[in-house]
């Protein structure tokens, strides 16, 4: 999609006057196309072709099933419930991540302090650790004889340990911890691009700090928030091992069903159909976002 946007910008640069394209612009267009050829080819081979194969498999390619067997099987209530739960999980994680990440990113961008360095270190270290290691770490922290419960029991705050893991609480804690850095690192460049002069202007014209934030800063940082939300949502939508472990088996996701379809049933058609449904949902969401906020904004610098 990025490629399309670029060409659009190019045509916008010369509004409606095709006849008057200057030599410089023609040269720039040629250069753009030339520069784009490698990434476009890579996209075709690494992204478009596998998806076409997936579509083909979902329609029974390479297996014995009738073309729509896979999609028909997905109409069973169990798949709809799993899909519903997975969607809910992804949406809740995205919203909580957005709320938590916004102040962190704001702090890292707008406040010059040593804390910044420590925040970045903490953020990146957690990004580098494996999903599975972080998932098991949360078990150690949250379990009945874990760090948190031991502290609460020892200090007499409670006599019975709380059920903090092997349920939905554990799932959300684990997933949000894994997803939060993605939201923060998407928000930072969007916030850095906001020219502080706008806020100074707003303040000097008599707006209150709250008004300046709400009417200037927040709207300008919105593209970053949208991009981060899309990233976090699509990642959360595809999670399965973290919810499966931290949920104590009571938080099965649609991806868990795909794993079963492949590994236990060997039904590649059904697995491909399920994957296609997930893909279409993500794409639909992307389009909805585009309607609401304009995906092209993501590729603009804030403040334009």
């Amino acid at each position: 999609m990025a490629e399309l946007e670029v060409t659009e910008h190019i045509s916008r640069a010369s509004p409606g006057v095709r006849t008057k394209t200057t030599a410089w612009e023609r040269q720039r267009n040629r250069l753009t196309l030339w520069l784009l050829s490698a990434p476009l080819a890579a996209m075709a081979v690494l992204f478009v072709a596998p998806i076409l194969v997936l579509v083909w498999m979902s329609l029974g390619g390479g297996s014995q099933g009738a073309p729509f067997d896979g999609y028909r099987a997905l109409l069973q209530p169990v798949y709809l419930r799993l899909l519903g739960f997975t969607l809910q999980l992804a949406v809740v994680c995205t919203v909580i991540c957005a709320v938590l990440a916004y102040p962190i990113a704001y702090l890292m961008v707008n406040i010059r302090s040593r804390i910044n360095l420590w925040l970045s270190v903490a953020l990146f270290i957690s990004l580098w650790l494996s999903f599975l290691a972080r998932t098991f770490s949360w078990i150690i922290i949250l379990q009945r004889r874990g760090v948190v419960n031991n502290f609460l029991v020892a200090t007499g705050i409670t006599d019975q340990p709380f059920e903090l893991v092997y349920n939905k609480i554990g799932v959300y804690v684990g997933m949000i911890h894994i997803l939060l850095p993605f939201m923060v690192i998407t928000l930072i460049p969007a916030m850095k691009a906001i020219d502080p002069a706008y806020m100074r202007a707003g303040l000097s014209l008599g707006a209150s700090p709250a008004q300046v934030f709400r009417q200037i800063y927040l709207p300008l940082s919105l593209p970053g928030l949208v991009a981060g939300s899309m990233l976090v949502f699509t990642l959360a939508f595809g999670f399965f091992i973290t919810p499966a472990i931290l949920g104590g088996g009571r938080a099965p996701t649609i991806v868990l069903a795909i794993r079963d379809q492949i590994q236990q049933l060997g039904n590649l058609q059904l697995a491909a159909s399920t994957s296609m449904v997930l893909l279409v949902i993500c794409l639909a969401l992307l389009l909805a976002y585009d309607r609401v906020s304009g995906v092209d904004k993501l590729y603009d610098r804030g403040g334009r």
Partner: protein
Amino acid sequence: MYPKRLLTAAAIMFGCILPANAQDIPPAFKGSGTLIVNNWGGPTVEKMHKAWYGDFPAATGISLSATSVPDVAKLKIMKQVNNVEWDVVDFEGNQMLMAMKDDLLEPIDYDLLFSLVPKEQLDPNVLTKYGVGSTAFSTVIAWNTQVFPNGGPKDWVEFFDTEKFPGRRALYANPKPSLEIALMAAGKKADELYPIDIDEAFKALDAIGPKVDLWVEKTSQWDVLIQNKEVDLMGSSLARTMAQIAAGEPYAVTFNQSIVEQSFWTIPKGAPNVKNAQKLVAWMMRKEGAKAALELLPYYGMANIAVYDSLPAATLAKLPGAPENAKNTHKIDAQWWLDNGEAVRTRWLDWLSKS
């Protein structure tokens, strides 16, 4: 001298330290090249497999390289694009049947096998057309001996007796063997389960479901659960539990109504080197190898049953396949699971997502 250096390097890579007696090996077993063995991976499996057949390269001149994990869907696609990468695969019973359904496996060369290992030494139940028994792994009743110092449940009915054994329970988050466990908890005998009446099984699951505090997704979770005493009663992996008991954790197990699932060594059709793969599979059946593997990790069943005569009583007491322990076990019916997997797994996810 180049091939010899390569061979030595490969032998070191595979951790081969046991020099094999060259005179013992029939000339048909000599060869060259490398075989790719697909097993379940992880440090424990690696150690066990080294002891089991790590002497193969030095004895035959065929080096080995390990990869993981066995996956029928992957093999199916490899076959479709004519690029099978694995020579020998350690498939679970129903995986093997699934692979057979798609005609992905090469028949085992039993003439070659019996020329190396006498037929009488091997368990006839695990010698099948397309695979020979690799390991049999068990799910057993285990309990925390500090919580239950006077002994744990003797069967699955007692396991779910919350008055006699109050505490937290964990089972595998998998319909196999949870369906079997639920039926035994409902009072069915271990040898009367198949064919499973699916409706009856899910009714039995409804009865035990609320008593299960957590469903375990990954086998490695047992280690964490045991080390932290998170649960008091488990239907857990025998190997994982025994390893933790050996490390001093206060848990105990019973072999009564333990559930045994058989895995098989198989050779994919179109494997890079089928001929050498047949040699390796035969080699894996040797008594010496089975003995070395069981001495290291005495938690599995092996195809070579003659090995039990040569092991000390203390080791035998731990072995699921030892005659005394194998008396009242339940064997997973892989064929039933192949035929009913789709219906059961969908219903299982449905059941789990509602509970």
